[in-house]
């Protein structure tokens, strides 16, 4: 491993962290357009983070150190995860270090801390949000794992790098199992990021909120870190989706032009899919919480079907 590699690795990390709020802003703009509202500026999330970082942190009297540590831990987890996913270049030093199962573990570590901290102060909303979050993730995680298993068995490896290069090596092929897994992944993405059929990121209505209920207790830079981490999480899921289902354009070269091309393609995918997410959220209605198990059950079903079809059809 050359220093250049580590440089690239660091570059991707910084790119991911900086890009995440932009993606949030982009999705927000599209949502506003689709709902016939005047769109906020693309830079709005940055401004918000900036503002929050300059505000004072107010903590409840009963708050334990856990509440204080959680925002940093969350951001750290997400930052680490972001560096593990091949966004532009497949051949990064850390890419080989970890496989998808560890990835799922990292994401759930962050979630566990968030949920624990939400219950820390002891307000009703916090524990309500934590419980709902655990319900959703408890159902979403097996579906996500099944999606990964499908792709892993297609490529005979659970390493993310081999999954990506495996597809690239084979060229165009119609995988029915991959189509099913893709839909399941999309459903999990929506659920895990608190998007519309499951949760609404813009609402503070106590009957329905999940994610927002958990972070009511945070303020100032803590809130900023958590918001940033959730933006990062969306970016992570997006780039994970690109890596698994739209792997074209990823480069393994160290050449400037190759990297630039891959980067542009990556940004293009983000642009299109971010708008797509907004469209998807606008056309679908939020489901009652009691229907969420059904929704995620469908995702799980699709993922299981994907893996079964893979074994039957060999593709």
């Amino acid at each position, binding site marked *: 491993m050359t220093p250049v590699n580590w440089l690239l690795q660091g570059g991707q990390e910084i790119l991911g962290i900086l890009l995440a709020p932009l993606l949030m802003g982009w999705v927000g703009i599209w949502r506003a357009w689709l709902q016939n509202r005047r769109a906020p500026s693309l830079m709005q999330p940055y401004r918000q983070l900036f503002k929050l970082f300059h505000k004072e942190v107010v903590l409840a009297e009963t708050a334990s150190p856990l509440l204080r540590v959680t925002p940093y831990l969350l951001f750290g987890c997400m930052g680490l995860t972001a560096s593990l996913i091949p966004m532009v270049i497949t051949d990064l030093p850390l890419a080989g270090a970890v496989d998808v199962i560890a990835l799922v573990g990292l994401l759930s570590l962050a979630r566990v801390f968030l949920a624990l901290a939400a219950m820390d102060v002891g307000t009703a909303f916090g524990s309500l949000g934590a419980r709902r979050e655990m319900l959703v993730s408890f159902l979403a995680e097996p579906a996500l794992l099944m999606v990964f298993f499908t792709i892993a068995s297609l*490529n*005979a490896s659970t390493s993310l790098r081999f999954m990506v290069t*495996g597809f690239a090596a*084979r*060229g165009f*092929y*119609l*995988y*029915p*199992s991959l*189509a*099913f897994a893709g839909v399941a992944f999309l459903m999990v993405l929506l659920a895990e990021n608190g998007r519309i059929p499951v949760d609404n990121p813009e609402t503070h209505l106590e009957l329905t909120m999940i994610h927002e209920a958990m972070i009511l207790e945070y303020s100032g830079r803590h809130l900023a870190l958590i918001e940033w981490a959730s933006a990062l999480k969306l970016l992570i899921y997006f780039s994970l989706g690109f890596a698994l289902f739209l792997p074209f354009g990823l480069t393994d070269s160290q050449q400037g032009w190759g990297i630039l091309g891959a980067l542009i393609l990556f940004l293009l995918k983000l642009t299109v899919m971010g708008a797509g997410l907004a469209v998807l959220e606008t056309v679908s209605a939020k489901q009652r919480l009691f229907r969420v*198990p*059904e929704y995620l*059950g*469908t995702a799980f*079903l*699709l993922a*299981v*079907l994907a893996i*079964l*079809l893979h*074994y*039957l*059809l*060999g*593709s």
Partner: protein
Amino acid sequence: MSHWNPAPFAQQLLDLFASLLLLIAFAMLSQRRILTLIHLFAWQGLILTLSIVDSAWLTHQPHLYYSAGLTLLTKVLILPLLLHRLIRRLDVVWDVETLINIPTTMLVGIGLVIFSFNLALPISHFSSTILRNTLGIALASVLLSFMMMITRRKAVPQVIGFLALENGLFLAATSATYGMPMVVELGVALDVLVGMFIFGIFFFQIRETFDSLDIRHMEKLKEE
């Protein structure tokens, strides 16, 4: 993946169609609304038609094109239209079935898929045709439709399950073999159509007698 030799594109497409057919079978299993069920049935018919056209093209069997035409005519046009008219005349367009437990049904459904894939694997090794993979899918969708008939408590969804079962059988016919002899296919199609008419007559008789299309009214005949 050292020995990777991709199948022709038409075959990939065929696998995809078969998978979609299975997906629709699942969707039907979990669908509560009658109207949507009919639409799903029509979609299933359409995908079946496409897959038959595809396998006809793939295997250069001209008589499969006739089969595809027959399927298009009966499964996509006539039967859904008949069902549409029927539920409008019976005034059950917006009927919703409330009693099905979807997660359990789904789990059992997955079990059925595993079972039929297992059953089909040894058979498909014998097949000389290139369409063999889909046999397991066909069997799975047959069993799923069968389960749909068992879990439903209303007459129309039961019948749609019956028709979907026929779809699965047709997929089996075109996937395992290159379609049945034409005489047989015509006969089967005729039977299905006549059966549908009789079902239609039945719906009216049942509603006239019981004032509802709920099968629960028809559980009197039992051994006590």
